[in-house]
């Protein structure tokens, strides 16, 4: 067992939740570095509790570590108190398993889940003592690689990364690490090595391309190296059953956000909501077989002792013959006292029935995401549920004894009018009355409203985000509506963080300078309200001489060159155009797509 480094140990008694930094959890891999050919750290640019709730991290950890010739350790962003101590004591960012500094590894891989964790990426590189700019990294420094959803438009991060891995990495990452080891023998330097790596499918080496801008617009992306691929295709797992998946995931000592066994039902989502990036970049839908799900669930419960099992996917109830699966799981886990849960429920009666079957215990809250409150707007975004379906489904849930609902909505969606915004409160009001008649008991409703962020690789990628003052005005309409509604709990996302998210989600390489400024000005954990400071960000934009509004509120034309157009998520531009057109021309073939 690793003995916690004395230097680290001396800091831990002074920080909150020291177990974030100690590692050594049950089921964690402990590999002797001697004799291992390729060593990688998976760096998650958020707190331990957040990172350890990410299923992707657990899958990659398994996929690399099951190979004896390589290893993967973990590192997370230290909280402010720990960062301060680390800097004061000159302690570099270390990997949890061995306590070794990140700079001693061959590869540091960042999981890029969320634009607002980008400053943490820079901070972690800095804390690790790794040169921020890929171009300045010496031969002995690790290669820095990024993957995850934000790698589908990683341009704002381009100068800081040696390469990105597009798409699903659990199969290709171990392959790539093996290649890396082989290439190292022959490639004379880093540059050659990266050139060789760029020949692999899914590998994007940003230094091989040079953007050309004209009048604030991206005009061309030139290839620095004529051998670089013109388009980088994403990697994809073909068969989930044979892809690596952890049977014995690490059990954190500290309670994390999702502290439970997780078995993935299927990857991808066939619904095609037009705002949803996950719905496009994880295509096509691939399902795990029932046998494999049951087997994995059993193993995970036996090897973790978890009391809760989550059947994860983007839209659980789309799994065919889910009821049979639940029967089988019931039998397989009989007597184990395991609670199953089914996140990402669709708002229909079938989903309610399944939720009922799963929850034998106390029925507290069910969560749904209607996203928009009028049928018209739901059609625009292709979240095709009718008002009647909503009422029937929630009514069934009330009959089944559920105590309340959490509903997610968005404002600022394309074509949204003031009426659509006001409709959120009206819908809740009607639901309240309906529940009162139906149940005769108090049914709690909590409503959470976020602001629409146009994302790359979606039919809405060309759409602007609403200007900030307009978002604020619509948030006021929203609040007004709920004023007269006691007992309904309304919360909304901060408009400024959504604004920043929009800037980076469709950003280009010019934003790298902003990120660097923001990091230097002390921006960290921007997704956490208590750390976010818009004034610091404004200053960063000023220093870099960039108008953030130009990015967030930009409307792209179909023939504009998009900063991510060389990155192929597997969906043709024509499909996005078609979907985009359909969104604004509803009556044409609406009937056809309304199932």
């Amino acid at each position, binding site marked *: *067992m690793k*003995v*916690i480094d004395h230097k680290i*140990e*001396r800091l*831990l*008694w002074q920080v909150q939740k*020291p*177990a974030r930094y*100690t590692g*050594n959890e*049950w089921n964690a891999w402990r590999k002797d570095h001697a004799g291992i050919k390729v060593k990688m750290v998976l760096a998650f640019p958020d707190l331990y509790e957040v990172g350890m709730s990410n299923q992707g991290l657990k899958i990659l950890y398994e996929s690399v570590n099951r190979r004896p010739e390589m290893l993967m350790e973990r590192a997370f962003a230290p909280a402010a108190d720990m960062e301060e101590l680390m800097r004061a004591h000159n302690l570099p960012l270390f990997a949890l398993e061995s306590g070794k500094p990140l700079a001693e590894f061959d590869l540091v891989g960042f999981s890029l889940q969320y634009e607002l964790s980008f400053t943490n990426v820079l901070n972690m590189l800095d804390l690790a003592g790794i040169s921020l700019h890929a171009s300045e990294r010496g031969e002995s420094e690790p290669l820095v690689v990024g993957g995850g959803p934000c790698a589908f438009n990683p341009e704002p991060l381009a100068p800081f990364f040696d390469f990105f891995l597009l798409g699903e990495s659990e199969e290709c990452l171990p392959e790539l690490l093996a290649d890396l080891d082989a290439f190292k023998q022959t490639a004379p330097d880093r540059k050659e090595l990266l050139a060789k790596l760029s020949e692999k499918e899914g590998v994007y080496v940003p230094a091989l391309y040079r953007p050309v801008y004209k009048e604030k617009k991206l005009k061309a992306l030139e290839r620095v190296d004529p051998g670089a691929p013109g388009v980088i295709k994403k990697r994809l797992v073909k068969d989930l059953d044979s892809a690596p998946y952890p049977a014995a995931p690490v*059990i954190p*000592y*500290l*309670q994390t956000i999702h502290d439970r066994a997780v078995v993935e039902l299927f990857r991808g989502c066939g619904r095609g909501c037009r705002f949803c990036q996950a719905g496009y970049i994880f295509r096509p839908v691939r399902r795990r077989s029932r046998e494999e799900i049951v087997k994995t669930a059993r193993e995970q419960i*036996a*090897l*973790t*002792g*978890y*009391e809760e099992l989550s059947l994860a996917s983007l839209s659980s109830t789309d799994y065919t013959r889910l009821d049979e699966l639940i029967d089988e799981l019931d039998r397989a886990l009989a007597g*184990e*006292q395991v609670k199953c849960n089914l996140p990402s429920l669709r708002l229909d009666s079938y989903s309610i029935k399944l939720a009922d079957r799963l929850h034998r*215990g*106390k029925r507290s809250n069910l969560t749904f995401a209607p996203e928009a409150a009028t049928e018209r707007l739901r059609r625009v975004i292709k979240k095709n549920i009718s008002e009647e379906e909503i009422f029937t489904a929630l009514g069934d849930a009330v009959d089944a004894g559920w105590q309340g609902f959490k509903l997610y909505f968005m404002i600022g969606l394309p074509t949204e009018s003031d009426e659509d915004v006001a409709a959120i409160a009206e819908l809740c009001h009607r639901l309240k009355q309906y529940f009162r008649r139906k149940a005769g008991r108090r049914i709690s409703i909590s409503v959470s409203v976020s602001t629409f962020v146009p994302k790359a690789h979606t039919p809405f990628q060309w759409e602007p985000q609403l200007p900030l003052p307009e978002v604020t005005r619509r948030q006021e309409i929203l609040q007004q509506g709920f004023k007269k509604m006691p007992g309904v709990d309304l919360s909304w996302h901060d408009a400024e963080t959504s604004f920043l998210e929009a800037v980076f989600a469709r950003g280009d390489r010019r934003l790298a300078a902003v990120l660097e400024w923001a990091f230097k000005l002390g921006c960290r954990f921007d997704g956490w309200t208590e750390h976010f400071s818009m004034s610091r960000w404004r200053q960063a934009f000023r220093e870099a001489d960039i108008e953030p509004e130009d990015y967030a509120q930009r409307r792209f034309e179909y023939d504009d060159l998009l900063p991510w157009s060389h990155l192929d998520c597997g969906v043709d531009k024509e499909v996005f155009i078609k979907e985009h057109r359909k969104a604004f021309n509803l009556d044409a073939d609406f009937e056809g797509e309304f199932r």
Partner: protein
Amino acid sequence: MTRIKFRFARHAPLKHISHLDMMRLFQRALRRSGLPLVYSEGYNPHLRFNLALPLPVNVTASEEFGEVYLSETVSPDQFVSTLRAQLPESLDLKSASSEDYKAPSLPSQVVAALYRATLGREENCRAGSSQFRAALDRLMAREEILVQKTKKKKKQAYVNVRPYIIEAYFKESGNESPLELYMLLQAGSSGGVSPFFVIEQLEKELNCDCNNKAFWELHRESLYTDKDQFLQPLSEGM
């Protein structure tokens, strides 16, 4: 149904985890072990398992106790070997015994705990051991040591915790060895005081002018129950 009481030590690598996290750790280890566990009835069944007294974060321990109910008879030795296989090395399961299952619960038996605080010398307070001893004498001579407790309705109440410090003394030690403070503190359902609080008060009494914050390593030596008005270690009879 049987009830098993077990004894364990917590070593340094695991001292950073909270009581709730310890509970979860044990529950999951028990669930992995395949032992015939017992759950409570009702909507939200929970494992019938207890730890004798919450162990604070950053404290190691040599004699901690837990108890668990089993639906079938399992010998203490078998229990120990089965559960040991599911525990991290830094949680050292030492022994177990069968208990009368109608006896009061383990947490309700605890009345006191003995702590040892070792002063880490390197970077810390320059006060000498005689100053520490004098400060402790002053502290123990006080009749009242008040702790602010915020009650519900925002009323503030003070509790005098001085009576909860049953004993506190520095171990006689040579000049070379680190200073060791032993504290026997009341604990459990009838009220108690945190060892960290006592140290804080001691440092206040010390009133040393060097601004270094002392670093104390805390260790819990043993837990006690009440036996005819005398303290008896919980390990008695194991």
